[in-house]
């Protein structure tokens, strides 16, 4: 069975985010015919990539036992969102009618979700070191 690390998926998908900047560089004037279409296409692709990677992150973390590994997944996912946010933030003023403001809002939603999950996992990791009184929780063993 072929296995792939989550970090490899992130790395691969970061290239699509980089491509957003490249497409904008090749189409500096949004009023030139075809420029906004080209940028809109890449905007949709970035949104699909982030949404798809998020789904993989959910499925991976649902099966993972080690909380530290779950934290790493959400940290990496938040980093991908940050990278995409950085790219689209610099473009949404110049290309306001090419889907960039909408992508920015969606990316913020995803970033917020990843950050919240990362912070909650950190609480759970900390909680592992705190002894719990017997009889409070059911045993799952």
């Amino acid at each position, binding site marked *: 069975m072929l296995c792939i690390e989550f970090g490899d998926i992130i790395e691969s998908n970061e290239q699509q985010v980089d491509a957003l900047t490249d497409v904008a560089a090749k189409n500096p004037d949004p009023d030139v015919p075809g420029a906004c279409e080209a940028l809109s296409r890449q905007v949709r692709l970035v949104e699909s990539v982030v949404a798809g990677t998020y789904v993989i992150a959910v499925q991976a973390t649902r099966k993972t036992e080690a909380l530290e590994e779950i934290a790493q997944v959400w940290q990496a996912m938040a980093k991908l969102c940050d990278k995409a946010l950085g790219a689209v933030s610099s473009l949404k003023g110049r290309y306001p009618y090419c889907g960039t403001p909408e992508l920015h809002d969606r990316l913020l939603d995803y970033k917020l979700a990843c950050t919240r999950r990362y912070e909650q996992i950190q609480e*759970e990791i900390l909680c592992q070191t705190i002894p719990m009184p017997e009889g409070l929780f059911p045993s799952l063993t």
Partner: protein
Amino acid sequence: MPDNSDAGGLVSLTDLKQLAELFDAAENALVPDSPEAKAAQIAFDRAVQQIYDCKVAMNTQFASVAQPIFKAKLRSLCRQFLRKN
């Protein structure tokens, strides 16, 4: 056969099963800000608070467990429960 479906601690297995379902719908939603995920998150938070207020805080043996610690431990237990079921 004895019915041990509610065996467990002060927080019962039945409590945990219900919380795990809500946790799954919120935490593992494929679209994080979907209305369903948001509703599940609100229901999970409310259920945890209710269990804490009605069972834990009222019990002198467990009242020293702070609510954020209680909630974090419950989230970990929900993860374990979902992996096993």
